[in-house]
């Protein structure tokens, strides 16, 4: 499971709407400019939800369907989409940026033309990513609408409500909020191709803060706000594997694997190495796990002429 760093004491309630309820249509995005989530649950009513779960209604009234929102990562702006058939009708071929509720206003933009079936797109640089009726996420040129690449979300993003976000340093994050008993989170680095995945408690509603790399989730069972980091919490440490040299001046490769409570790899976690009852040297005292959850180190036998190997004890710990 991802590390949960905060859980509100009480359910998040929306002013004049009661408890957060995903049975109503809802959309939202984290906005850096307000350092909160701009969220809508009903047509036209916009709430600001802050990191501790407190919520205020900042705009209200009718007139605009804000269900279908997208986010511009570079401009830190939320936009809504419409086409010739009216706002929210996404099953058409020309869906464009139109309104901007992120500053409580509607202004007309020059439209980006989205393909049929777009949902919750993210604009980043010269590209935009969006969900598609075929249950994948695609990358498009935002000037021409030309398909540039597809992001493999097989097994993770399977439903239209699944949401993605991209961090400024290139992590593509996709969440399936209801994957049986939990929500599944998948990370893909768009630069290196590195991937890992973990899970959060089953969520009725969630948002990704790409700047602080947090996931804001409202637990399905009781609407309590939870904040997760992108770090997988280690649950188990494997035995150390070691080569068979263990001789004078010879090096041996050491490795250990960190797993989460669902046996998912724990990446980027510091592992402390200690030579407790052995002779020789360790190359590093702390190493980080890779995206398979494996941390490596090197043991070098001592220079003593009569060293013949034997039993050595090396301790690893993860610490917090």
């Amino acid at each position: 499971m991802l590390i949960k760093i905060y859980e509100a004491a009480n359910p998040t309630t929306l002013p004049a709407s009661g408890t957060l309820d995903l049975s109503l249509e809802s959309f939202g995005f984290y906005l850096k400019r307000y350092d909160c989530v701009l969220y809508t649950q009903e047509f036209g009513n916009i709430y600001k939800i802050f990191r501790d779960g407190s919520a205020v209604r900042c705009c209200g009234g009718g007139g605009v369907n804000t269900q279908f929102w997208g986010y511009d990562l570079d401009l830190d702006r939320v936009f809504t989409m419409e086409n010739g058939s009216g706002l929210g009708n996404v099953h058409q071929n020309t869906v464009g940026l139109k309104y901007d509720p992120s500053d409580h206003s509607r202004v007309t933009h020059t439209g980006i033309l989205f393909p049929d079936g777009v949902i919750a797109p993210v604009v980043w640089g010269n590209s935009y990513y969006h969900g598609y009726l075929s249950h994948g996420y695609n990358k498009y040129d935002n000037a021409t609408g030309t398909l540039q690449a597809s992001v493999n979300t097989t097994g993770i993003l399977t439903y239209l409500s699944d949401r993605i976000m991209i961090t400024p340093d290139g992590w593509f994050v996709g969440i399936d909020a209801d994957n049986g008993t939990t929500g599944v989170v998948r990370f893909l680095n768009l630069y290196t191709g590195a991937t890992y995945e973990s899970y959060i408690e089953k969520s009725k509603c969630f948002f990704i803060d790409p700047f602080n790399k947090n996931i804001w989730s409202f637990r399905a069972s009781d609407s309590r706000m939870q904040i997760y980091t992108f770090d997988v919490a280690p649950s188990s440490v494997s035995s150390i594997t070691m080569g068979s040299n263990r001789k004078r001046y010879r090096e041996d490769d050491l490795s250990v694997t960190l797993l989460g409570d669902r046996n998912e790899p724990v990446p980027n976690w510091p592992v402390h190495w200690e030579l407790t009852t052995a002779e020789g040297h360790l190359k590093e005292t702390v190493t980080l796990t890779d995206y398979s959850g494996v941390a490596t180190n090197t043991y070098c036998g001592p220079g003593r002429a009569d060293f013949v190997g034997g039993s050595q004890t090396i301790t690893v710990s993860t610490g917090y």
Partner: protein
Amino acid sequence: MLELLVRNPNFLSYRSCSNWSVDTTPWKTLFPTAQYNATTMCNTSFPYMESIQDIEAFVYDQAADVYRLVTVNNIAYFPGWEFWSYIISPETGEIVSSDRLPGAALATFLTDQAFNGGLGKIWAGHTGFLPFPAVYGITEVLLPNMYATSDMLANPILTNTQIPILAGTNFGFALAPEAKLITVLTLMGGPRISVWDYSTSGAWPSSTPATEVYYHPAPESFAWGTGYEDEQRMWALFANTISGQTADRQSILKYNYASNRIELLTEMQNIGGNDRMARICFDTRRKKLAAVRIKADATNGAAQNALEIYAPRPAMTMVTVPVAITRLSNETEVHFISNLLGTKGEAGGLKKVSISCSPDAGLVSKPSQLSEVNGRVEIVLKPTVAAAVETLTVSYDETKVTS
């Protein structure tokens, strides 16, 4: 909620019937045969001879450094109404002097209301109802007597042509140097702010404004007043609050007409409620926002009107619980975030906040710091030697808001 600095309730007292005879002199000259009966119009249970019916202008006179309030007052004698001008101190909100406006000014104010514009000028819009409600033109209002100039601006759009404004409450807002007229309208679908650029619209009126922003999502609310701040910003006050909130507040926004963005959406507290109307204007010298509130008269007819002066920024009412954004660790710094906010989640930027940690107070890197522009306060705790349980407290000193 905007930060209220000065409130002067009952700043404007009505004249009582005991002095009505003095004020009727000019009318008696004009209509010597008119009959007045003080007994029937004024009596001990209703001792006042006037009541404000409407506000025609509430502006900041930059040259004289005063607020000028022009009202239409119902009066207890022929012809039943008068225009009155009140001069108000921007420091105290007290009325410095008041006088009946001469008749020559009446023609201006019968048409529409007056507003502050660029370069300290004041303008009055001319509206009509055929073929549909429209702004016909703008006339400069000359101080100190609030006379309107006889000619409308020499521009095609301002000479007997129409800006096609279809319905609702509208407020002209003239900015001569920038050649812009800004209207704040309440139409179906909610209030919108339109910027009409008459320097480039030779074929005015085109039906499309140069830029337009919708106050979104719209409360069902009428625009009540505008205030010119500078060559980028203006304020607009609406009669109702943001939908879903309590009725003792009114929504107010700051609009940047250069960038076409709403920069701030907040509220004004409507103390005592019962507003019949309100207007705002901006003191460009002191950078303060003033509001005049005309409230329903007391049962005996006494005035209950208020003059308020606000700082053009929201008051802070909330500090959110500091929440970590990095995993808790005793080996590395841990970052927390708290937000300093107003009632509508408005950001409290560049405010001094204090941070404390207990029992190990030394963990806090910066015990006193300024909030960021978006109200965010990032707190850095130093690494601890061993696992520890600490209580982190963030407080905003000015209002003793703590979380």
